[in-house]
């Protein structure tokens, strides 16, 4: 019992530390939020202007919502992925990585703390963006199943946490450029997951890749819930698929991380300079 309390206390240490850092880097947070809002608006305005661009009658509200769901879901998943995958790069940059790895906590506890922060931070960030974008457009959400949307997002977080843990191995193995390498994973997921367009427009050989990406299922579930008002029961197959991917991805991520940690301890890569 004491051990469990200690592990929860240790997980909370990461949440508290990260929110303290967010407070101290408030300037960066403002810039990042402004960028994210501008980005979301730019993409959503494509939907608003689609009729003018094509000269044909289009369901503009549907188009706006389609792109808005894409940009918000992608933003949220990218924030979760970034925060989890950059936990090593961040600590290496601050020089604290050896102290964290020397602490008597399991890697699972470490990851739980980091991912908990990522999910809360991601939801707050995405909520603010949604609030601001909603001021610019007359969004018709009368048919939307908001609860189903949130469920889909939470279920999708699990798989992105798993992927993030796998990606965090890169900064551990490649101290100089590992953090940048994680962006390649994000770019590939963005391409194949149908964030701003249906997967069906991808070349045939790319479409099976979309089925491997958890983001594809999150976006399908979110669009069904918010655009088509699909009931939570209808979303069940998407939700169970996402949970299944997450349940596999997280232990696999942890196992990969443990191996990478062992390798880093063999080769001395935990040291700040690498």
């Amino acid at each position: 019992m004491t051990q469990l309390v200690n592990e929860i206390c240790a997980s909370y240490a990461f949440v508290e530390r990260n929110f303290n850092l967010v407070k101290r880097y408030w300037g960066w947070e403002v810039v990042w939020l402004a960028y994210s809002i501008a980005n979301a608006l730019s993409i959503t305005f494509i939907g608003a202007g689609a009729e003018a661009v094509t000269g044909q009658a289009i369901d503009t509200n549907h188009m706006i919502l389609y792109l808005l769901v894409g940009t918000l879901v992608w933003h949220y998943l990218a924030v979760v992925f970034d925060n989890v995958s950059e936990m090593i790069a961040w600590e290496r940059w601050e020089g604290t990585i050896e102290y964290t790895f020397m602490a008597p906590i399991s890697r699972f506890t470490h990851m739980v703390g980091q991912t908990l922060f990522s999910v809360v931070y991601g939801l707050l960030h995405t909520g603010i963006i949604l609030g601001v974008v909603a001021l610019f457009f007359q969004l018709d959400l009368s048919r939307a199943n908001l609860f189903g949307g949130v469920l889909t997002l939470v279920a999708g977080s699990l798989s992105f946490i798993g992927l993030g843990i796998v990606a965090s191995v890169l900064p551990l193995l490649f101290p100089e450029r590992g953090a940048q390498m994680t962006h390649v994973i994000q770019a590939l997921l963005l391409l194949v997951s149908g964030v701003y367009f249906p997967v069906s427009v991808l070349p045939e050989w790319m479409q099976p890749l979309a089925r491997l990406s958890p983001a594809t299922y999150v976006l399908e579930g979110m669009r069904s819930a918010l655009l088509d008002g699909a009931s939570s029961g209808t979303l069940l197959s998407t939700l169970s698929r996402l949970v299944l991917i997450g349940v596999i991805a997280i232990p696999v991520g942890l196992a990969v991380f443990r191996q990478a940690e062992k390798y880093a301890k063999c080769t001395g890569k935990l040291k700040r300079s690498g």
Partner: protein
Amino acid sequence: MSAMISTTGHMALEISGVTKQFVKSDGFRWPWKRDGNGRKPVVAVDHVSLHVQRGEVFGILGPNGSGKSTLVRCIATLLLPDEGCISVFGHDVLREEMAVKRLINRVSVEASFFKKLTPMENLIYGARLYGVGARQARERALEVLQRLGLKREAIFRPMEEMSRGMQQKVAIARAFLTQPILLLLDEPTTGLDPRSKREVQAFLEELRDTHDATILLTTHDMQEADALCDRIAILDEGQIVALDTPAGLKALVPRSNGHEPTLEDVFMELTGKRLVKEVDE
């Protein structure tokens, strides 16, 4: 924290035949190739054996690159030795890693912190990882930091506004907060001004006299080693070239010009030959 782990009836630290080598990379290499794609490895620690008694202050002296920090990292579970074994109060660092982690803490030459956070925030974060509650950590941190000469207002300002000496004191407080039974101090006073150095050394003396702590200290400061250490090992090219009490080490070197030899004389005598050799080359 450490009270839960058995520490009775054992030597504080036993190092037996520990060897650690690295492959220096000058370009791309496959991560899974342990042999470094044919590159010659550098032996950082070469079959080192020593033991440290409970309550002892044990010093390790050695030139830069002699393997002191590598050895400390092996003890701290941050590096896996290639050969040999290390145990802390009878707990093997590989097989019982978590138990060892609960018994130790380390202060390195670089005071590594989240620089935007205050000393208090950094210390509470560190203490939580060791199972120390925030309130207890706050009270103890205030006490230790003020004992180390930090002003109260500095404790609540970002670390980046502090001098290196101040940051190093916070690093010592961080280690002390978790009440380690084995404290690993890797050049804790390097780069500090004389006053800060004196304050840190006084704190270490107090720690030695009043707490049940065993200290492993690596340093370049011969006077510090002489004043604080019960025994000292001199490491050169990864190997122990001498191990004795400060007085015993001094007895290894003959008197010159009627002066008693100092630890610096011993150090130069035992490790200085390489310098001459390098200059000759």
